[in-house]
């Protein structure tokens, strides 16, 4: 799967299928600090991400 990350914008790749929570744990990202978006849809942490999928991992924490 292709993973789009922010701050700074970059890409990562992991083998699928995998649950969202698993993907985040492997990337060492706290689930409470991001949203996972596939296409335009928000996906929950128990959702399966397939090898052919592209997901965006969008941080929700701002400095304000």
């Amino acid at each position, binding site marked *: 799967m292709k993973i789009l990350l*922010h*701050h700074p914008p970059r890409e990562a790749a992991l083998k699928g299928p995998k649950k969202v929570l698993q993907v985040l744990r492997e990337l060492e990202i*706290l*689930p*409470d*600090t*991001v*949203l996972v*978006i596939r296409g*335009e*849809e*928000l*996906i*929950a*942490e*128990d959702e399966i991400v397939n090898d052919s999928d592209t997901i965006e991992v*969008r*941080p*929700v*924490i*701002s*400095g*304000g």
Partner: protein
Amino acid sequence: MRCRKCSAKAIIRLPRHNTAFCPPCFSEYVTDQVQRAIKGDRMFGHAEGVAVAVSGGKDSLVLWEILSRLGYRTLGLHIDLGIGEYSRISQRKVEVFASARNLPFVVHSLRENHGAGITEIAEGVHRPPCSACGVIKRYNMNVIALQHGMPVLATGHNLDDEASRLLGNVLHWQDDYLDKQSPVLPNSHPKLVRKVKPLYRLAEREIAAWAVLQKIDYIVDECPNSVGSKMFVYKDALNRLEDAAPGTKHQFYFQFLDRQKARAQVSPIEPDLRECVSCGQPSTAEICSYCKLVGTLQREAEPALKVLK
């Protein structure tokens, strides 16, 4: 994962409330929390105009969206900080959002008013950019809101913002800041707006999720000046605690508010305000912090800035 309310497919889990929601039930939860804040804390009524501080980020646009959907009369206030591409994109997000919904807004440009952006201003007055930015925003938001007949100023501060600010204040025992950290600050002077934070019951992630579900286009990038900000350190610490023990953030902030209410009943906080000798705005000092900043800028930085031009 199923919605706890209607058992449709859930799209978000809220560990701190030990629940999960589908899109419609989540949207209802978000709106309910905002209404609960507005009504429960007596923030404002439908007869009052509410100025909304809008940066173009998720919190302020979500706040503006919910307040206008709830039927409040709003006016967006955007400060153009003059930080190159970041400021241009931010303002564009505000313009697109407002024009799609036919909402009124005003823009206050630092370059137009001071001939420089916030980065140069902060350097000119030898202060960290976020501190100079705070002084300028607070002062101008208050003045502009009142100029437009808006007695209330709403900002998009969320639970994470408030909990991390509380952590910072407690770590340094900033007692006087602790007194001011409340979701409602009454106007203690006729020239001051009432300041309210209707999103304080919602976590940052819940607000971002709602923005994505409602297809609100906000700026995801961070202010370049906030890189290395202490707030990120406090938020990171709280998020680690939250991951290990869901509900920690909520308890930390809400229990503080309970204690604060109890203290305020014993000895109400009465700020000692007079009018700034330079601009006439309410201030605790002879010259207000905004006039001090602008004074330093004129004495030291503006000649240099003119040379640069």
